């Protein structure tokens, strides 16, 4: 079954001093941070409903 990315090689890793982490894990962590800040900063739609209930 074809994959979107070419998976027929070793996973790329980032080495920085003691830190060693796969690029895919770093991407997921960065995505979690982005989603976390987006959840705080983006306005929730029901804000416009205030006072109508």
């Amino acid at each position, binding site marked *: 079954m074809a994959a979107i990315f070419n998976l027929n090689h070793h996973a790329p890793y980032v080495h920085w001093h003691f830190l060693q982490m796969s690029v895919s894990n770093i991407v997921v962590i960065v995505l979690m941070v982005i989603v*976390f800040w987006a*959840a705080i900063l983006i306005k929730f739609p*029901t804000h416009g409903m205030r006072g109508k209930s």
Partner: protein
Amino acid sequence: MSVSQHEPPVSAPEPASWSAWVRDRAVRTLPPEKLLPDKQPTYVASWIYVFGVLSLSALAVIILSGTILALKGPGWWHFTGIGHFFNSVHLWSVELFFFVMVVHLWGKYFMAAWRGGRKGVWITGSITFLVAIPCALTGYVSQQNFDAQWISTQAKDAMNAAGIGSFFNLLNFGQMYSYHILLLPAAVVAIVIGHILLVRRHGVVPPFKLAATASRAGRDGAGPDAREASS
């Protein structure tokens, strides 16, 4: 206030049976309007409060897709198109579960969600996270393929080094599969149910008051907790 010596003190009558005692206790601890509320405080109208429900939704998909995989077996999930599909649904719902659970954890950590007598909520959430990790890892060694074989032969050394390899043997497929589809999921679901009941009992943790809001609330005699809006 004086109490007449001839009148016994007013108290609730003793329940007639253990079932009545359990019912009375359950309703007193978690009345229906708290168990299934139709209103939430205004501060809940924020995306950061959505991630608990997203975790629950992902968990439901995990359980459902895992049940189908367990019913059909490895020959189905490895060698048929629809089997591949449910295998992928199971994997990606687990990925999503951990993703949204981590965001939920960060949100609650920075809200200090253990405030206001909610330490039980925080502890059950933390234990859920810790139990969910081996639940997922035993899934990797239950795949019945070379990936599972590689992971189990590598991970067994860690278990042996920790001294628990004799009763948690990663090379024992039957044991790992039992852990993955029964023992650990049952533990996760049970703790999650406890977590939700505690959230319903104590309510959603309010955000920290800003200095200006706190002083104004002190003057007015009401804080943000006093306002309510339809959820």
